[in-house]
């Protein structure tokens, strides 16, 4: 059993860091380096660089140079990257502990109170070793991991080298990631980490790799609040595809991730207050998603499983888990069925516009659906790639639901600077799906007369 090096390293780090924080202990500054070394045996088959051809390699180097320059030239130049994610990393870099007044005293000012700690902790570790700007090399490393995962997975799926090179070039130069706006690779936002984890999860799904899928699903809720939704969507789509062990591994991974992160988040969001046990319901979300997907795959189970998982989701919404976050607010509104129907067309229009925005994502999300439609018309089965398309589609609907049900006072902010970031989290999955589908319809070897 093997797993890619990056998610294996991050999972080891998260599995040690969160219990240490729960016990009130600081993280040693060498923890990330030690986890990287410890993950090497798991990843021994994943360390060879994939062949990209001249075009793919050139685009990758250009993109990498731009992202590295942008990340390391200054501190984050974009609002949330500086005031939320970066500021938390600076506090954690002091001694790696959550026992500092800024975390333990609710009266201190911290705009990112209750935000997930995976990225700030990783950045704090790299900053300790490489300095405040050098530590930001974390971001180009994460971005590179996304590109190499796409290349490696497409090679493994039998895509021709030139197709792989073109897909890598298409992703490497994508404005949503390489231009320095909110959520871009060098912005300091956690959207890049989510995009990387989603790409690893999608690659694991395409290659039927349980451990890699479980690790990516474990890390998603620790990276950003919406990671819980992403992991659940992927688990449900994998289960609906009908391959037993992989979605079960994903549901277990996500549940373990939530069991470690949710109590810590409850403590951080309301320091000293009674956090209650609402968070205990959250690990049931991916399990309900697994049941829902499995029910879709088996005709006889469809109705009972769909109703059962909806009941679980309703109970979670009613008990108020994640209450301190915008996502928790959306859950609560869903529980009350408090849907702003008149706003839905505007929100849905915005989300789908961002998914086809030529200057941000180009054909990233359009191309895989066009190729899939063409293949289906020719009677070609989509194999595992159908699950990725379903996940992208459900994720877009989830963004619509989140913006509609989230806090009203934040809706215009989400529409202006949030929706494009949430959509861009799926760009790696988009190019993975596009490349895998294009490989289905590759031309036969040319014959000379």
């Amino acid at each position, binding site marked *: 059993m093997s797993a890619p090096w990056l998610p294996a390293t991050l999972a080891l780090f998260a599995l040690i860091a969160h219990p240490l924080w729960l016990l009130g202990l600081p993280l040693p500054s060498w923890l990330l380096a030690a986890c990287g070394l410890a993950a090497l045996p798991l990843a021994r088959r994943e360390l060879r660089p994939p062949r990209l051809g001249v075009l793919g390699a050139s685009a990758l180097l250009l993109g990498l140079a731009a992202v590295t320059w942008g990340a390391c030239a200054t501190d984050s130049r974009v609002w949330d990257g500086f005031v939320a994610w970066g500021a938390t990393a600076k506090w954690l870099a002091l001694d790696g502990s959550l026992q500092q*007044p800024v975390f333990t005293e609710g009266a201190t000012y911290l*705009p990112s109170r209750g935000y997930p700690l995976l990225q700030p902790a990783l950045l704090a570790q790299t900053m300790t070793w490489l300095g405040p700007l050098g530590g930001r090399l974390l971001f180009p490393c994460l971005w590179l991991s996304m590109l190499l995962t796409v290349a490696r997975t497409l090679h493994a799926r039998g895509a021709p080298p030139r*197709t792989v090179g073109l897909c890598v*070039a*298409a992703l490497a130069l994508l404005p949503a990631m390489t231009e320095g706006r909110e959520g871009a690779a060098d912005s300091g936002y956690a959207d890049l980490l989510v995009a990387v984890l989603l790409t690893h999860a999608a690659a694991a799904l395409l290659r039927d790799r349980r451990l890699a899928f479980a690790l990516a699903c474990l890390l998603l809720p620790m990276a950003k609040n919406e990671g819980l939704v992403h992991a659940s969507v992927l688990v449900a789509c994998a289960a609906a595809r009908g391959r037993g062990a992989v979605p079960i591994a994903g549901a277990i991974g996500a549940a373990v991730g939530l069991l470690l992160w949710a109590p810590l988040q409850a403590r951080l969001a309301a320091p000293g207050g009674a956090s209650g046990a609402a968070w205990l319901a959250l690990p049931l979300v991916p399990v309900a998603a697994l049941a829902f997907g499995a029910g879709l795959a088996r005709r006889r189970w469809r109705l009972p499983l769909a109703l059962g998982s909806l009941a679980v989701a309703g109970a979670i919404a009613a008990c108020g888990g994640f209450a301190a976050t915008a996502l928790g607010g959306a859950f609560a509104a869903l529980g009350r069925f408090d849907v702003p129907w008149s706003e839905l067309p505007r929100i849905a229009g915005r989300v789908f516009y961002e998914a086809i925005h030529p200057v941000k994502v180009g054909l990233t999300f359009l191309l895989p659906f066009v190729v899939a439609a063409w293949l289906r018309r020719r009677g070609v089965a989509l194999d595992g790639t159908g699950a990725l398309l379903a996940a992208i589609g459900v994720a877009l609907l989830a963004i619509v639901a989140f913006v509609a049900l989230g806090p009203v006072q934040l809706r215009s902010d989400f529409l202006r600077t949030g929706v494009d970031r949430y959509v861009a989290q799926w760009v790696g999955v988009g190019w993975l799906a596009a490349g895998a589908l294009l490989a289905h*319809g590759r031309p036969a070897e040319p014959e000379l007369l």
Partner: protein
Amino acid sequence: MPPIAPAPKLASRLSHWTGVAPAWLAALLLAHVAFVALRFPQGSVRKRGQLIEAAQAAGPLWHFVHADGETKRIVAWLVRHAPADQAIAYDGPGRGLMEPLAAVLAPRLVVHASLVQPDGTALGRRVFAGHPAGEPANGRFGVVDATDGSELRWALRSPR
């Protein structure tokens, strides 16, 4: 004499070169790659270079570039003069420009003015009591007035 292969048409060349069939799908893929490649020098290099240059010139005031002059003066003064082991008090709802102020002042603690004790401390730390114009504190503490969120002001207050 062996038969000579006919010259492949553009469509089949496109498919063969990209490894993608049919040719219109190959053309879509190439169109995307060409578009992002053409945009790269302007969007990812030139614009980024301008932003980096501006951010390096602004230094810690980068996130306050649209703020008024007094706000910028207070931020620059606090960054230069507030000791790292002291707390900075603020008043107001804590939105807007308070967010980058707290980040730029880290690792100094930022606490609400209501927490300041009669002895001029909060959460066990001395609260910064300087004044940009050199006005003596006389037992008062300094507070960032962020009531508006779009501008920051500095005042000296007496502890309750």
